[in-house]
């Protein structure tokens, strides 16, 4: 029996192909490089990331399905590609000197980073539950390995094992959810599921609702929503700092990309049902994240709980489910990537070999000894807290106003109260930086490597630019969802 081959247009997946090719290339060139010259691989990976970014730019404006409707190439997926690639580029810049200091400068590091990013790109264009599942696995498996990359560090081993075991557990939920949704609708293509749900016999099937709940659990684990957040602080603390930065931004954005596609494209008809689940999750996530962050003394754990809280704010946009809600999620993710990666860049700068110097007290007096770095950290912390001249304020403003416009006033009030609460622990770091004398007298000077300085500069300029002139990126985010919600 001859099999008619489908028409395949490789241009549609050119960003993915470029990243994949560079991932393999890094692996091959790694063989011929001596240990101290592995930094060249970072340059090569950056070229790949920029190339994928350029390919995404070239596709901007297209809106069609490809590969027998497995993927959808639209502005939403391309905007997400931009967020992922921006985050990865910053992480690569931050990694070069960090992994040399920690003695884990292996070529495989960059290639795993690229493969994980490739998984994110696949998720953002996924139009089919299988693609979303595989994309999420391709994001996670390299990250399980990267968390344990510091093999001699016990905490890193613990992080990798914990992330692997709990991640696999969550994946099982996701897979079971996919099976139940498929069983009750008969399709795995997202638009097709939406079409089949107009039949009330299908859309009232209880199995479908259980499937939906399990999908939310599976994705909720990846973005660290509250009842499924237990792994976050331990994994964020134990993993190498550059990997933590990558996880906190990339995986979160990828999880939200998947949630947007599944909930708003496929299960749009069940909105009445999933909104009530997400409202509870949002309140829990914001509150628990912020309250526990108050008592943290380790900067990585503090940022872990802060990232949980930010996932809660992001859920507000999804609960609103409107055009404004989705575009403000996109804007928030861009801002979050810049400010969070910036904060982690400072954590890397202050840190010492073997992941030392992560206690909040190690930041005492830093604001005077390194005024520029102190100023940068203050900008990131102000932005994370959401204080006006910075981008964090604009992002929170839009996401809360989206929730208010759709009638979730109480939820928005809880969100605002929570960000007031978060001000306490963000400002505490600044108080320590500027108003407390260092305990130890002899402190090793901080080594500013070019990669880290560039990453810090990009993050600072980005946060300030988006805080003062947000309209261009907001317009982009609005045009990104034009085809997504109308069709």
């Amino acid at each position: 029996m001859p099999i008619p081959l489908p028409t395949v247009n490789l241009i549609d997946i050119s960003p993915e192909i470029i990243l994949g090719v560079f991932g393999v290339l890094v692996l091959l060139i790694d063989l011929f490089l001596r240990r101290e010259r592995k930094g060249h691989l970072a340059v090569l990976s950056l070229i790949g990331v920029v190339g994928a970014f350029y390919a995404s730019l070239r596709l901007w404006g297209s809106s069609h399905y490809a590969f027998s409707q497995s993927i959808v190439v639209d502005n939403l997926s391309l905007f997400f590609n931009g967020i992922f690639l921006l985050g990865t580029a910053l992480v690569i810049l931050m990694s070069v000197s960090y992994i040399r200091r920690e003695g884990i400068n292996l070529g495989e590091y960059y290639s795993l980073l690229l493969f994980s990013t490739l998984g994110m790109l696949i998720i953002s264009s996924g139009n089919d539950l299988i693609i979303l599942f595989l994309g999420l696995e391709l994001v996670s498996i390299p990250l399980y390995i990267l968390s344990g990359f510091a093999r001699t560090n016990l905490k890193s081993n613990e992080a990798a094992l914990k992330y692997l075991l709990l991640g696999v557990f969550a994946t099982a939920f996701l897979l079971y959810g996919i099976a139940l949704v498929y069983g009750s609708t008969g399709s795995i293509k997202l638009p097709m599921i939406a079409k089949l749900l107009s039949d009330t016999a299908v859309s009232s099937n209880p199995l479908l609702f259980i499937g939906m709940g399990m999908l939310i659990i599976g994705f909720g684990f990846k973005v660290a929503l509250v009842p499924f957040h237990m792994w976050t602080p331990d994994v964020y603390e134990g993993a190498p700092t550059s990997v933590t930065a990558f996880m906190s931004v990339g995986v979160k954005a990828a999880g939200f990309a998947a949630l947007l596609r599944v909930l708003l494209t496929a299960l749009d008809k069940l909105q009445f049902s999933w909104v009530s689940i997400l409202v509870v999750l949002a309140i829990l996530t914001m509150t628990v994240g912020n309250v526990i962050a108050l008592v943290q003394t380790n900067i990585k754990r503090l940022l872990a709980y802060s990232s949980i809280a930010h996932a809660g704010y992001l859920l507000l946009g999804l609960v609103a489910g409107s055009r404004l809600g989705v575009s403000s999620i996109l804007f928030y993710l861009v801002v979050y990537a810049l400010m969070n990666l910036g904060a982690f860049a400072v954590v890397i700068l202050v840190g010492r070999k073997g992941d030392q110097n992560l206690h909040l007290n190690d930041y005492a007096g830093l604001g005077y000894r390194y005024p520029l770095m102190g100023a940068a950290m203050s900008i990131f912390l102000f932005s994370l807290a959401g204080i006006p001249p910075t981008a964090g304020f604009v992002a929170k403003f839009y996401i809360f106003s989206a929730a208010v416009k759709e009638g979730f006033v109480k939820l928005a009030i809880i969100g605002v109260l929570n960000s007031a609460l978060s001000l306490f622990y963000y400002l505490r770091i600044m108080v320590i930086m500027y108003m407390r004398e260092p305990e130890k007298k002899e402190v090793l000077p901080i080594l500013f490597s070019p990669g880290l300085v560039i990453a810090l500069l990009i993050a600072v300029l980005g946060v300030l630019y988006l805080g003062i002139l947000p309209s261009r990126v907001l317009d982009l985010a609005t045009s990104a969802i034009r085809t997504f919600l109308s069709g």
Partner: protein
Amino acid sequence: MELTLFVIFGAVAVASAFMVIVSRNPVVSALFLILTFFCLAGLYVLLNAQFIAALQIIVYAGAIMVLFVFVVMLLRTGKEARRGYRLIFQKSIGIIFVVLFLLLLGSITLMVSVTGMRGPYTAEAVRHIGNTQAFASVLFTDYLYPFEIISVLLLAGIIGAVVLAKRKR
């Protein structure tokens, strides 16, 4: 007939999967895992997917499990693997939720009939084109892209295994 076979295979699969977790000896766990794989293969046959059933036995029960058993025997995880934590609170809460969840699922599956669309590959259609052909024609056309993604996924897994297991440099 089909239903009884389904229940038997399903029950044995779940029971042996449970034994994989609870048995203290890793080799016994591995053997129970083989039993689970065989039951899954039986379920595939009931679904008229003989080709996948054969793959399941050859690849999983055959190749992968042999590796598993070898690794377990070579590592000789003797005493340390047996030390268990008690965690009575977590266990009891876990058991309560599992039972509730199973009751929920069970009552629902008894209540509702299958809704949703039927695919093009009914039992007759598959018998007509042939099992392997039907499988291939879907895998290399509609699911071409997922198929390629899996290759990258496996590559990432291999890199990880090498990185984590390599001797100290």
